[in-house]
């Protein structure tokens, strides 16, 4: 890529064109942008605001209202722990605590410093029959225990370490 910044806006333009620059399509537009950049960068939201003729505050309002939008970069691996009723009564809190301890996260800090992991709690994944459920990078794992959850995370850590080693060589 010769001009990374120009091409960055090219993709946004494509997304905007795909939705005919229709301000009513703001949510699908932001969803597609987030799918592309993994978060909503400020300069792109400003760009979208001009393109759609909406105020930046309106865009910011929508981006902060819905929990799926994030204004800060997420980790490479997203761990979603379901804390819906069924998972909650089957002790999903224990899973969250175990993960927080393992990755050094807390209620405020949801992404690890190395940007490898982001921990999210979600209200209900609809996999209540398998409670408690954990979704790791879009794969559902059911009937989890703190031990089996940590095992998953450690497997990823090991894999990531391997990648780092290989690139170093």
């Amino acid at each position: 890529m010769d001009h990374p910044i120009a091409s960055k806006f090219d993709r946004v333009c494509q997304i905007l064109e795909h939705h005919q620059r229709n301000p009513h399509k703001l949510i699908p537009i932001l969803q597609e942008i987030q799918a592309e950049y993994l978060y909503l960068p400020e300069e792109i939201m400003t760009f979208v605001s001009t393109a759609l003729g909406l105020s930046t505050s309106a865009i910011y309002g929508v981006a902060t209202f819905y929990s799926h939008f994030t204004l800060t970069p997420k980790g490479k691996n997203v761990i979603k722990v379901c804390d819906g009723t069924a998972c909650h009564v089957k002790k999903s809190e224990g899973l969250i605590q175990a993960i927080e301890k393992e990755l050094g996260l807390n209620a405020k800090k949801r992404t690890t410093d190395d940007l490898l992991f982001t921990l999210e709690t979600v209200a209900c994944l609809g996999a209540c029959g398998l409670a408690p459920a954990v979704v790791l990078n879009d794969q559902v794992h059911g009937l989890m225990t703190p031990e089996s959850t940590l095992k998953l995370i450690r497997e990823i850590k090991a894999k990531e370490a391997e990648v780092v080693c290989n690139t170093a060589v």
Partner: protein
Amino acid sequence: MQHSSLEERKQHYHDCMSQYKAKIVICGGTGCIANGAMDIFHRFEAVIAAKGLKATVALQKEQADYILSKSGCQGFCQMGPLVTLYPQGIFYVHVKADDVEEIVEKTLLQGELIPRLLIHDDETGEPLPDTAHIPFYAKQERTTLKLCGMIDAQDIDEYIAHDGYTMARKAVLDMTDQEVCQAITASGLRGRGGGGFPTGRKWDLTRVQVNDTKYVICNGDEGDPGAFMDRCVMEGNPHSVLEGMIIAAKAIGANCGYIYVRAEYPLAVERLKLAVKAAKEAGFLGEQIFGSTMNFDMIIMEGAGAFVCGEETALMASIEGRRGMPMPKPPFPAVKGLFGKPTVINNVETLATVPVAMQMGVENYAAKGTAKSSGTKTFALTGHVAHTGLIEVPFGTTLREIIVDIGGGVINDDGSNCGADFKAVQIGGPSGGCLTQEHLDMPLDYDNLLSVGAMIGSGGLVVMNQQTCLIQIARFFMQFTQNESCGKCVVCREGTRQMLGLLEDITEGRATKESLELLEELAHVVKIGSLCGLGKTAPNPVLSTMKYFRDEYNAHVFDKKCPTNQCQALSCYQVVAELCKSCGLCAKKCPVNAISGAKGVPYVIDQDVCIKCGVCMETCKFHAIVK
């Protein structure tokens, strides 16, 4: 464009199916896929090929010996992955990829059953060959869900082969808008999303509005934690939702439909998109549908994670690209809805029930269930029961039938089964209330539930055993509604926050008599003063637990004790002297040095210093520390 008729497609499908020796259906619901259903699917292909036979997949229907198909969620998620072999209907559970070889060898080729993979009768221990004999299914009446778990959601022809789209065609070609509304009113169908408003009447109110543009919206923003029936319907039988929407469109004169799906349901979104594409190609959606003059287009919109968008006015704001905040009603959506146009907005299950009710005859449908709540209702049965999953029963079924006969009894924390001895059942999610032992034999329907302070909601049934602390549950739901409150009206935004704070005071031992009184007063204020359903119903879990479990609240507040020992801050860790081996490990691990002792003497915990973190109990190898 000339399309082949539904009858031709149905005949073609059956001709095609008659060539196969067996049909292998692998449950492709979220639950079974999480447990490796796709591996099993591919293993079947490989094993059958290795035997020199040929298997085809449902969508292609090539000439072959066997046909492999993925169904939607069959509801018995806990027993997954599930494999069903037709024509006999042999039902194998907990299947692993390594079992596939044996299934092909023994069952498919030699016709023998494999007892290890069958469900066994709880009492006699006899293996049960098919779903008709399994209590979990035998006691249900699967009507809306009938085809879910039987057909391949991605294959429109399977839906057509089961008479799919005939009711939409009938409505579009042979009925007037008024006749459709009358038929649905006669079926007694009420909204399955929570409110229970009669569907036919809702449609008729929209029908009489004069406007060139009207909309049908399918509300698939199933946000109640603990409920997943809409997910199963959208994943397992998306065409039934489309057919219901076409019928609704005819009834009100709409030309555009929206399906609003939660973003947490990626599989449902994918299958709905495929279904819309197939229906367009078949001429059921788009311009001049079924060869009539009616145009009806469909747009699928993914939510972005806001529970309040399940409220209809908030959902419409979200489709319009705004923050999903509710608006005061009236005007009702029937008059002024999406983009200011008359709009019908129905829940997924309601829409999927419409073609089913018409198919079986609206009078026959109305005859099911109870007088004022006709038909059947799906419930997501979860929590501490032996068999969790998705069920469907007629209205009027009792909790005892659901929990004991279908759910197989309540499971204690230690794994033992205690039959019907549950502590509470939360129905209707964070908007609903709890039911107790005294409601065990009450017929469940809209009105009975309202009369005891609960509601059917979207149909989550979370069973809780005797070891569950209900204050914690009330706090959990309050935390949820407080998080999800959109912030528009003060009583909901601030009231839920204060209620949560009071509940935390109770679980952490800071509460007084005044806290309880204030909590109750606030609950009533939030209930009366909030704008939308979220706030109006948010206090329900608190009010109903206060009503039925006052003793438990009192124990927390006055005795500073949690009867179930679930509230960490109220627990009191103690060393059982007889079991203590004086190893000193607990004292070493204690972060505040609250444990002291010496070799040969049992250790002691200083309660004034203890911060109740529980590390000592986890550390002790001899289980000598209890709370």
